[in-house]
């Protein structure tokens, strides 16, 4: 039986403005507030795949989480990995099988990067590595020592939104918001690559980011507008 598939009571819903803020910017303070409020139920979020449990295998489970499964039979130990993320250095002790996405979300609490498909098909986990967009779900954290990693939390310049973030708000480039951090990271790189010439080019070069709400029209409008402004990074 899957330990994470238990029925959970519905979470208290944040108001719309707050949710937009959290999902669009991944702002750590806003997010932490949200997480704190919903911690009792968020720890048992139904959609967290089994892989996530490996990432935090050696840390005690959150109090309200369902019982953790037994540790894997083959124990290959942990290794020291130092990651450079959004200009900060994070020393980690992790198993080599921990993906960059799980390291970000489960160990570093940088939960702006989202786990959608976990197979490199949806783009919700997109981050920038040395300025290039990649699927963090298919990257092992151990492979990226020495690389400069930028997540949605590092896209804004302090309080100043990146032009792509501002344009997503202006053009309503999201509905549920789950794909938005990945869309924004991907769009920042797409513009930097010079692949945002027109709608047709964006359709092709943003095809690695799926939006199940179908906000594509507004996403393209946002990227085209942001393209012509000076980006804060990348």
């Amino acid at each position, binding site marked *: 039986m899957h330990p994470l598939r238990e029925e959970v009571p519905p979470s208290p819903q944040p108001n719309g403005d707050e949710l937009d803020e959290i999902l669009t910017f991944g702002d750590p303070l806003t997010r932490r507030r949200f997480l704190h409020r919903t911690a009792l139920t968020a720890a048992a979020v139904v959609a967290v795949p089994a892989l996530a449990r490996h990432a935090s295998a050696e840390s005690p489970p959150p109090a309200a989480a369902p019982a953790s499964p037994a540790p894997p039979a083959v124990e290959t130990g942990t290794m020291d990995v130092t990651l450079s993320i959004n200009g900060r250095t994070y020393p980690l002790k992790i198993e080599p099988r921990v993906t960059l996405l799980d390291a970000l979300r489960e160990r570093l609490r940088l939960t702006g990067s989202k786990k959608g498909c976990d197979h490199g098909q949806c783009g919700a986990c997109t981050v920038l590595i040395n300025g290039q967009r990649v699927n963090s779900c298919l990257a092992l954290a151990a492979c990226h020592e020495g690389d400069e990693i930028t997540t949605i939390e590092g896209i804004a310049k302090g309080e100043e939104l990146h032009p792509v973030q501002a344009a997503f708000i202006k053009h309503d480039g999201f509905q549920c918001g789950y794909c938005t951090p990945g869309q924004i990271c991907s769009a920042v790189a797409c513009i930097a690559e010079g692949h945002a010439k027109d709608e047709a080019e964006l359709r092709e070069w943003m095809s*690695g980011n799926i939006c199940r709400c179908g906000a594509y029209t507004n996403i393209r409008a946002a990227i085209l507008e942001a393209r012509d402004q000076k980006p804060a990074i990348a």
Partner: protein
Amino acid sequence: MNAFTYSRAADPAGALSELSARPQAKLLGGGTNLIDLMKMGVEEPPHLVDVNRLAALARIEEAPGGKGVTLGALARNSDAAQHPLIVQRYPVLAQAILSGASPQLRNRATTAGNLLQRTRCPYFYDPAFPSCNKRRPGSGCGALDPGYNRMHAILGTSPACIATHPSDMCVALAALEAIVLTQGPTEQRAIPFEEFHRLPGDQPELDTILRADELITAVQLPPQPAGRRSHYLKVRDRASYAFALVSAAVVIDLEGDAIKTIRIALGGVAHKPWRAKKAEAALVGKNPRDEAAIRAAAELELADAKPHEHNKFKVELAKRVIVRAVGNAVA
């Protein structure tokens, strides 16, 4: 994902000695296929050798002695597709690379990883299916009728396996007659592209002839004659970011209005990039704008096709893709 141990190779010799010492180890490049297969439980290597720091294998450069261009095993797909040597001399390769996967995946995916990627046959990719001769030799083929075989092969299949090779890049490399350069513990090999990937026969678990203790170091692209025409055409279920139903890479050298040499490779129809040699032979001396002649050559090539319940459409589609790709190459 299974637990495994991890090491980083500092140079090709280090990677080779790791492979020799640990026969079950796998090399980790971009990881866009291997990590996914490990998550699925299809691959469970006890050890990964990270080769991402072998910078010498990431180069794209002129081969010495006018032998064309050397595309390093670790060159990322996105770097290859925008490198001036590739864009200017081998545009069909750039087209094929850019028609595959997504920008995020191409930023990580490597040359060697593209050659070694596994089929996306769902019976192979999901261990919940009990039958797959490629994943568990002798367990049968779940894709054969009455299985669901819409994406499967129509040429060169065997009773053991009807999987397709998923790559676009490799279809172009087949048409370009590239050479796969490998380094083993004692010898280097230069393997013609056509020989590198296998047909399934009765050993579908073997995709290629690469040995377990061998490292791909580069793919060599032969020099291109002046005036060469080429095109990559991919037909898929959606406009972007989907595997090919059928694709074709076409390379044509003309003499006046007649075809002097033509190479046609098909994707999505076989266990390996399929060189349409019957069609090629039939087209020498013909005018590439003579659509009836191209259609006749395509008919000849597909005469041997063995479709299954859900992929009968691929036979006609492959013919049309050949006609359109040749037409586009000389348009």
